[in-house]
Structure formats: C-alpha cells, structure tokens
C-alpha cells in the first residue's frame, strides 16, 4: 500500500527547510573569507547575484517540485520529457555526490563541538591547561589535531557515522515530525548563536577593524572581474541554487503555497546568516591577529584551515574564548547538520518515489552516505577532490535546469508553475531574462573555474598520461562527470519508466 503523501504544515516549514538547506558550512567557512578579502564591494555584487542567479533558479526548482510532487528524478524527468531525462539524472547524481562527502563535514563539526565542550569544561572546572595548549603557537595543538582527524582517523569515521545515524532517525520520522520539527529548533538557535558570537567579537579591542575590512566599499574594485566571478559563484554554492534540493523541498509543499515569496524569504535569510557569520569571524580574526596583514593571511589559509585550525587558536587567546569557541562550533555543527538533512532527503524522496518505504529509504540513504563517504573521511585529498569535482558540477546542474526551463518557455513556465497561488509576483521579463542569463553565465563559469590552473597538469601529467589522479585537475573533473553522464544516458529509459511514467 502506498504511504500517505507528506506535506509541510505551512510556509514556515518550507522556509526553515530552505534555510537549513542553504545555511551550511559554506556560510561559515567560505563566505567570511571571501567577503573579508574583497570587502563591501563583494557584498553588493553577492547580493546582486542573489537576485540575478540564485533566486530565479531557486524559484523554478521550488515550483517544479510543488507542481510534480516528485523527487528530482521524477520532477525533472516530467519537465524534460524522455529525450532530456538524463539531465535530471545528472543533477541528482551531482547532489548525491555532494551528500556523500558532505556527511564527513558533519562528522568533523561534531568532533570539534565535542573538543570545545571538553575545553570549556576544563576551563571552567579544571586547570584550563587544555585552552593554554590550544592558544600556544609553539604547541601546534590545533594543526596536529586537524591533521590527525582529516587523515586515516577512525575518530572521524565514528563521528560522521553518528551524525548520519541521527539524520536517519530524524528523516525516518517523516517531514512534519522529523525534518520540520528539527529545523524549528536548529535554525532559530543557529541565528541566536551567530548573533551572540558577533556581539562578543565586535566588542573586542581591534574587532571593529574586521568590520572595516568587511564593509568598506571600494568603487575601483567593481572593475575587477575576479570579484564578480567570486560573487556569482559564492551565491550559487551558498544558496543551493541548481542543486535540486529545492525541488525536493517543493515536493512536500502544500498546493496553496506562494513559491515566489517563500523563495525570496529563504534566499535573503541565507545571506543574512552568512553576513552574521562574517560579522562574527572577521572581528575575531582581526582582533587576535598581530597585524591586519596577518589577519588577511589567515583568510588566505583556505576554508578548513580557517575554521579548524586558525579560529580555535584565536578563540583560545581571548578572554572567555572557550565559551565563545563552544558557541561557534555549536553553530557550525548545527549549520552542517541542517544541510545534510535535505541532501539525504533528496535521496530518500527519490527512493520513496520508487515505492521503497520511508524508513527503509532513510536507512539506504544513510548507508550509502556512510559507505561512499568513507574515502572522503579517510583521505583529505579525496575529500578535496570530491568538493572540487561536484562543486563545479553544480554549475552544470544549474545550466541543465535553466536549459529545461528555456525548452519549456520561461514565460510560460512562470505562468504555469510559479504564479499559481502566488500573491507576491515578479515580472515575467525578469524571470525569463535571468534564466537565459544563467544558462550563458553558467557555461562561462564552468570554463572559468576549469581554466584557473589549480593543477600544474590540468589534462595530462608530465608523462603524457590522462591526469585523473590529480585532485584539482580538469581530467579528474571531466572523468567523474563523464561517469555520471554515462550512467544517466545508458539508463535514461529505465529512469524515465521508473520515476516519470510510473
């Protein structure tokens, strides 16, 4: 017997799910780095591309899910028809690829939260020696801790196993009792925690310096194309536009829900959270660094280095730092966990469309994340490779979704899919124009990121062999995308029959 169709209780269930999906590790470890480097100029462009790139795609995805009430495979397949069904399969495979390695991030975040809890207890009721070793640059405690956790660590494996098990438990309860109820606790708490860290960090001597870097708008910088590309890319990665996650959320939406307003609210909420995170991290970094130049160096250290080695060391040097660090890593763990939930829900929804019972589907999704995510937990290089391959792959997903809307006719799509039950409406010319723009801009962005030369040998190694082993090479990107595309094309008919026609 088919299970009863599930729905969110109201618009807030959808908005909290959209916020949980979008507010993830990227808001806390990528955005503050880039924003601190480029300042207010970047923020203006990042908001501009929220409206240009992210909102039209998110709106379209939410509307597709709401219209077809199926997971990504069924919904995108219904929109595309059999000929282009493989595009929806590719979009699904990319996001599933991300879910596999992202589950490891949730494990790391849990481990750091536990470490900071231990540190806080030691600071309040013990000798405080642990915090001293965190702060001492000669001890290199945080560098060593991160190096051991990110490579061949059973501790990391155990931690992400725990987070996946909790996710299975939450999602196995269903949409209202599981996802919606959890988000009602996670998201408001996350906002409050970020506000607390921001308020503390700004109060610190030198903390205002961070805000100076964050908000100063240098008009000359608008001429720098790099900032434009960073802004559009961060908006794409941060909001989850083109991932298919909003299709999944939309598939549980009530028919009377207002797609446009809910999308705008979720998207602006995501950017508000990212800005709050930057207002927490940058003042802390600038207050504790010896010079502004050293603070900028910290920001250049990379996502994981900033959050997992530099910040704990800086927090440890502050008065009351262990408490602040504990709150920050609590927020980080919540952000990471709230993002893995919709990723796993995407897998579960497709499995339940295939008529696998919900609880069984949750266990299969969790087991898949555990098994396929294992190499990312075991080798940091593998994790970085997956992050790179599927991160750029998301831009391709955005191109495919834009293409399918163009094929349907953007203005007709808006009338048939988005405007149903929407009191808050945007211009059809805005929507259509942005979808065409996204298609072209997406192609350019894929080319641009692959042309960045992060690998010394982007295609062939020094021996002339296909350089698939190099974690940042174009060869590894193309090879892994090709595998996903081959699966999508070879099984096109099967996916269409099982997920669309059924």
């Amino acid at each position, binding site marked *: 017997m088919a299970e009863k169709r599930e729905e969110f209780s*109201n*618009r807030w269930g959808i*908005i909290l799910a959209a916020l949980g999906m979008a507010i993830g590790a990227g808001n806390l470890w990528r955005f503050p780095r880039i924003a601190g480097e480029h*300042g*207010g100029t970047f*923020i*203006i462009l990042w*908001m501009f591309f929220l409206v240009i790139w992210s909102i039209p795609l998110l709106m379209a995805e939410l509307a597709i899910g709401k219209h077809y009430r199926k997971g990504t495979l069924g919904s995108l397949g219904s929109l595309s028809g059999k000929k282009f069904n493989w595009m929806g399969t590719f979009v699904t495979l990319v996001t599933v690829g991300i879910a596999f390695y992202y589950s490891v991030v949730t494990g790391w975040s849990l481990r750091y939260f536990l470490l900071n809890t231990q540190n806080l207890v030691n600071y309040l009721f013990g000798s405080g020696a642990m915090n001293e070793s965190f702060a001492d640059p000669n001890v290199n405690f945080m560098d060593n801790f991160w190096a051991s956790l990110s490579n061949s660590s059973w501790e990391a494996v155990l931690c992400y196993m725990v987070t996946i098990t909790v996710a299975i438990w939450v999602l196995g309860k269903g949409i209202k009792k599981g996802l919606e109820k959890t988000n009602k606790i996670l998201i408001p708490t996350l906002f409050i925690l970020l506000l607390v860290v921001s308020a503390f960090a700004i109060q610190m001597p030198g903390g*205002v310096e961070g*805000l*100076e870097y*964050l*908000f*100063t*708008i240098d008009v000359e910088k608008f001429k720098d194309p790099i900032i434009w590309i960073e802004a559009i890319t961060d908006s794409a990665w941060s909001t989850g536009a083109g991932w298919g996650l909003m299709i999944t959320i939309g598939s549980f939406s*009530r028919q*009377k829900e*207002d797609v446009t*307003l*809910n999308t*705008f*609210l979720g998207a*602006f*909420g995501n*950017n*508000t959270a990212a*800005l709050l995170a930057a207002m927490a991290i940058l003042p802390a970094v600038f207050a504790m660094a010896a010079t502004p130049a050293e603070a900028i160096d910290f920001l250049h250290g990379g996502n994981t280095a900033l959050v997992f080695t530099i910040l704990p060391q800086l927090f440890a040097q502050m008065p009351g730092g262990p408490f602040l660090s504990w709150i920050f890593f609590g927020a980080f763990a919540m952000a990471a966990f709230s993002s893995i939930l919709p990723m796993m829900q995407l897998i579960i929804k497709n499995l339940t469309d295939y008529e696998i019972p919900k609880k069984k589907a949750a266990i299969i999704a969790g087991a898949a994340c555990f098994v396929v995510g294992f190499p990312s937990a075991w080798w940091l290089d593998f994790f970085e490779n997956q992050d790179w391959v599927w991160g750029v792959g998301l831009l391709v997903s955005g191109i495919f979704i834009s293409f399918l809307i163009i094929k349907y006719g953007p203005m007709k799509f808006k009338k048939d899919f988005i405007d149903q*039950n929407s*009191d*808050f409406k945007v211009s059809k010319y805005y929507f259509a124009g942005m979808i065409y723009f996204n298609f072209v801009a997406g192609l350019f962005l894929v080319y641009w990121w692959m042309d960045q030369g992060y690998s010394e040998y982007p295609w062939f190694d020094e021996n002339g062999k296909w350089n698939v082993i190099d974690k940042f090479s174009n060869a590894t990107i193309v090879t892994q995308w090709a595998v996903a595309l081959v699966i999508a094309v070879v099984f096109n008919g099967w996916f269409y029959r099982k997920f669309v026609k059924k």
Partner: protein
Amino acid sequence: MSQEAIIGMIICLSITVGGFLTFLVIALRADKDEDPETGETA
C-alpha cells in the same frame, strides 16, 4: 571605524538584513490575511 566603512555597513545591512525583514513582514501579513479554511487571502 572610518566613514566609508560605516556607509558601507549601512548599505550592506540595509540590502541584506533589510530585505530579509521586509519579506518576513510580507509573509507574516499574508499569513494573517489568510483564511484558514480555504487558504485564500482576504
């Protein structure tokens, strides 16, 4: 904080947080006007 940074902060926060709060108010108003039986706005 310099004057430029303060102006930048006002602009950035107005667009981001201001936008979020505006849509939040619109959504709350729409919910208030909604007929719980039919889901239609008044």
